[in-house]
Structures are given as C-alpha cells and as structure tokens.
C-alpha cells in the first residue's frame, strides 16, 4: 500500500472527476454551474429533469456496473490464477446472451425489465456449468481447465444464439442492440433492481481477499496456510456470478473492463488481493464512465455506446501495459 498511496489518490480524484463529467456532459449542453445547482435544488425545469431522470441514474448505473465488472474480473483472475480470466472467457456473458435471446424468441418477452431476469438466470446457470465442468474429475479446478470449460461453454452458447437469431429476425434486431453494451436508454427502475445484488457481491468479494492471497501462493502452500480452498472457490464463484450476472443483465456484455482493470490495479498495489479487489472497484468505474462520457461527446447529437468506446479505448492501453512490462504475476 505504501508504494501505491499516491496512485490511490490519483484514482480517487479520477473517479470524482468522471462522476462529475458524467452528470455534467450530455447531448443537451447545460452549463456545469447550472448542473451543479440543479443536482441539489431541482427547479422543475426540463434541464432538471434531464439531470435527475437521465444523467444521475445513468451515472449511478455506470458506477455500479463498472465496480461489479472490475471486481468480478479481479476475483476471476485470482481464483483461476489466470491473468486472462474475464467474464467473457468464463462463459458468463454468453450465458446471459443465450438466456436473453431465448426469452425474446421462444417466449416472446419484450419487456426489458423481464429479460434482465432471464439474463441473470442465464449468467448464473452458465457459470455453475463452467465451474461444475472445471472442477469435475480428480485434478480439481486447475486454471487451464476452468478457462477451457468457460471457452467451451461460451462457444456452444454463442453458436446457439447465432442459430436462433438467424432464424428469427425480431430476435436479431433486439439482440444486436443489446450486444453492443450501452448505459443509456434503460428504464429508471433498473438501478434499484440490480443495486442489492451488486452491493452484496462487492461485500462478499472484498471479504475473500485474505483467503485469495493464500490460494495465490499455489494450492499446496495455500492448504498448508489453512486456506479453505473449496469454500473460497465456491464463495468466489457465487460473487462472480452475482456481479457479472447483474452487470451484464443490466447493460449487455461489456468487453475488456473485467480483464484490464485488475492488471492496472495489480500494477499499482502489487499482488495483494486485499488491495487489488477494492482498488479494482474504484478503477473500473473510472474506465467505464470515462468511456461513456467520451461516447456522448464524439458523435453528437448521437452516441457511441459505452461497450464500443471502452473496447476501442481500453484495448490500446491494455496492449501498452502488456508491452511495457512483465504482467504482474498472480
């Protein structure tokens, strides 16, 4: 922590800045000073409605989804001891997508609030299946087995989604807009629906920091240090499912945040999961909301969805980190 302390301040300042920008910047130009006063004293004007009904909920959504994705990614990378682990790789996004498309094609669900629950269910089922396959057999859940199981399940589910969307035009039309990943255009009650899940997942994840450190030393050393491997893995899997399921269900699959953020966090703090997990929760919203603000500005009056911006902007940064140094070992 000592060597990371100045960086922590930078991260917190950046978080405050993107929160401010996310409320202050949008399709309709409203002076920042007026936005600030409207936040505290809504005057019933249309500007106040924009700030309170659109921008603040959207910012809170980005904050929650970002934190969930960042922490879930850190958790996955620590659990599987695989620096490549991310919600996309372990099948969670594909599970959510498959459930959403099933709901829209076969059951004809069109209410966005309803298919959020299907996405949540799909994410949960996919991660249980991936974990079940990864841990079956005598050798237990080795990192490579988990990643392979996740890839296998993802590929099967994505092929299933492609099959359904090729046959059903309506489903394809809805799916392609969900699949880009957007923070805008969601119903106002979305935040309240996912907040309990994300908060619970974050608390559980941060509580797992210590046992994860023991696991990070390798299975045998971890066991010698008294880490309860099975319990930690199961609780970790529960936290990942809850966090990714809620985030992906809410805004669609967002590539890259869960993969990149833990690497940045580890570069700052070193490989101590007790610090990496909370720091990931702070860094990920900076990235996600920052990408969202950029998406609102570059293409006015239209928007570039956050999933696209975060991938286009995050990938080069990530590649630069990969090039610059040895990836901090897990």
């Amino acid at each position: 922590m000592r060597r990371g302390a100045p960086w922590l301040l930078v991260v917190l300042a950046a978080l405050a800045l993107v929160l401010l920008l996310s409320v202050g910047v949008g399709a309709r130009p409203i002076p920042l000073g007026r936005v600030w006063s409207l936040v505290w004293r809504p005057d019933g004007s249309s500007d106040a409605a924009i700030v309170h009904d659109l921008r603040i909920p959207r910012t809170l959504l980005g904050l929650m989804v970002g934190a969930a994705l960042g922490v879930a990614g850190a958790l996955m990378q620590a659990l599987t001891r695989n620096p490549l682990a991310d919600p996309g790789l372990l099948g969670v996004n594909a599970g959510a997508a498959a459930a959403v498309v099933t709901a829209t094609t076969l059951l004809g669900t069109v209410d966005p609030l309803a298919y959020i629950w299907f996405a949540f269910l799909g994410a949960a089922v996919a991660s249980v299946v991936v974990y079940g396959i990864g841990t079956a057999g005598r050798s237990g859940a080795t990192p490579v087995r988990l990643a392979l199981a996740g890839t296998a399940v993802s590929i099967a589910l994505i092929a299933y989604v492609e099959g359904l969307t090729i046959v059903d035009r309506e489903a394809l039309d809805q799916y392609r807009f969900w699949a880009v990943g957007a923070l805008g255009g969601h119903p106002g009650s979305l935040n309240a629906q996912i907040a309990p899940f994300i908060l619970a997942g974050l608390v559980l994840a941060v509580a797992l920091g210590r046992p994860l450190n023991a696991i990070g030393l390798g299975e045998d050393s971890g066991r010698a240090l008294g880490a309860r491997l099975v319990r930690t893995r199961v609780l970790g899997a529960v936290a990942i499912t809850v966090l990714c399921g809620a985030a992906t269900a809410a805004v669609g699959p967002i590539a890259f945040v869960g993969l990149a953020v833990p690497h940045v966090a580890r570069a700052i703090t070193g490989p101590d999961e007790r610090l990496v997990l909370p720091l990931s929760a702070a860094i990920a919203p900076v990235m996600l909301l920052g990408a969202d603000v950029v998406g609102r500005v570059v293409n006015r009056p239209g928007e570039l969805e956050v999933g696209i911006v975060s991938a286009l902007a995050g990938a080069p940064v990530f590649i630069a980190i990969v090039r610059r140094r040895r990836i901090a070992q897990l």
Partner: protein
Amino acid sequence: MTAALRIPPRSVGVGLALSATLLALLVVSVGTGEFEIPPGDVVAALAGQGDRSTEFVVETLRLPRALTGALVGAALGIGGAIFQSVTRNPLGSPDIVGFMQGAAAGAVLEIVVLGGGAFAIAAGSVVGGVGAAALVYVLAYRGGVTGYRLVLVGIGISAMLIAVTDYLLTRSTLDQALAAQVWLTGSLNGRGWEHVRPVAAGLAVLLPVAALLARPLRTLELGDDAARALGVPVERARLALIAVAVALTAIATASAGPIVFVALAAPQIARRLTRVAGPGVGCAALTGAVLLVGADFLSQRLFGDVQLPVGVVTGVAGGAYLAWLLAHEWRRGAG
C-alpha cells in the same frame, strides 16, 4: 530428422482410424439428401463407374461441399495446433488471438459499408484476418515474442475488432445484419469446385511447409531457452510457424467463414486421442476434417427444412463435446 519425427504407434493407429472415419463420413454425406444414393453407388460413381445422373449429383452437387468441409476442417485443425503450440496455451487458437475477429470485422465491413459480393466478402475477411494477425504479432514483438504476450495482445485486438463488428451491426439495416450474421456463423452451403480448388492448392503448398517445421515446433514447446540450447533459431521458427498457421486459417475462413471451435478443439481432441503431449499436426488435421464434415452432415439433416449454417452445429456440438471431455478427464493433471 527421422529420429525426431518418429511417430508413436498409438498415433499411427489413431491416424488410421480418423482417416477411415473421414472417408466413411464423406461417402455417407455425399450419399444422403433429397436424392438418396447407397454407399456402394457413391463409391462406384467416384470411381467413374456410376450412371450419369448419380455421377452428376455426386460430383457436381455434393462432393465439392463435402471436400470443402474436409479441407477447411483440416486447415483449421493444423492452424489451431500450431497456434496452440507456439503460444503454449490451449486457448491460443485463431478464434481467440484475433484472427477470426479480424476476419469477421473485415467481412462485415464489406457487407454493411461497401456492399461487395461473395468474392469481395471473402477477400475482406482475409485482409481483416491477416491484418489483425500481423498487428498482433508486431505489437507483441519486443526483442522477441513470448506466448503469453501474444495471447494477451491478441485478446486486446480482438476486443477492439468485436466492438467494430458490433457497431457496424447496429448501424446497418436488418437485412444486412442478417446477411452478416449468416456469414459470421460460417457456412458450407452451395460450395462448388471453385471453392475446393483454392483450399486444396493452399493445403498442397502449406502442408509440406508445416511438416518441415514440425521439429522446431516440438522443440519450441519445451520453452525458448531449451529450444535455443538445442540449436533452433527461436524467433525465425516462431514467425515462420505463425505465418503458416495464419495462411491456413485465412484460406479456411475465406472458403467457409469464421467457423468457431474447430481450430480450438481439434488439437485438444487429437491430443487426448493419441495421448501424446506434443502437437500432433497430422492427427489434428484429420480430427478437424472429421469434425467439420460430420457437423455439416448434421446441420443439413438435423433441423428438417431449416438449413442452419454449419457453424451453429460445430459451436453447439463441439463446445458441448469439449466440455464433456473435460468433465470426464480422469487422468490427474491433464487438461
């Protein structure tokens, strides 16, 4: 050379069994359809002894599709085996390190923005895939390329390319999106001899090169330092291997679209069948061919009137099979 390439007897047996399976699958898939042909007549027609209508159905309509499937499957199997060995990571297949995503972005750009025909779409996919692979290699190069950096850079580039594809799909008309989705899934529908020839020619050139590179490939699996100590020019060998794997994958993708899972799974399945630790390029090729021909057979018959692209079947069946394989793996430490 001969000592280094000594092939374990089990691999020979597996190779023969896979070849027999492939031939049987080819005969059966050429024989079935709206016009049923018994296997004996298929063989007779192939040998030039059948009647004219049978020969027309076999040689003009069905054989090219089956052969394209077999050749594309083989190319994907070899490409995947090389990629996985070079990156020393079972996930280091072209589906994951950027090639397929580059091909997809190139093709969707062609479909949605430029509105090109079938040839232009295939060309767009090759340019996209090769461009992505080259970009990944260049960005991962830093006084040499290590496997992990290659996979990580590949995942980064993939994320960007997927974003581009998704963006294009939301900005297109629904019909364009549908056409793109069919192409993105990978299909063997309507493949004729004009599709067989380029793949066959490509394989004829690239297979001997891959065979020549088998020894350095096996040595690279031991790690860079060990390979260097054994006298292998590590960087040059790796670049040559990646070039061969990219070329094979490019040919396969241009012919059939970015079919997922074959390049990822064929080497893994072959490895488990032969129980050999190293990259069994030959068995991976045969496994890939069997997988794709079998999947195409199923995709044509399984869903009645709905003709699903073969990529749907390779994805669902292959992904489920790899999962099953992992779940039933009893040998400790494997997988």
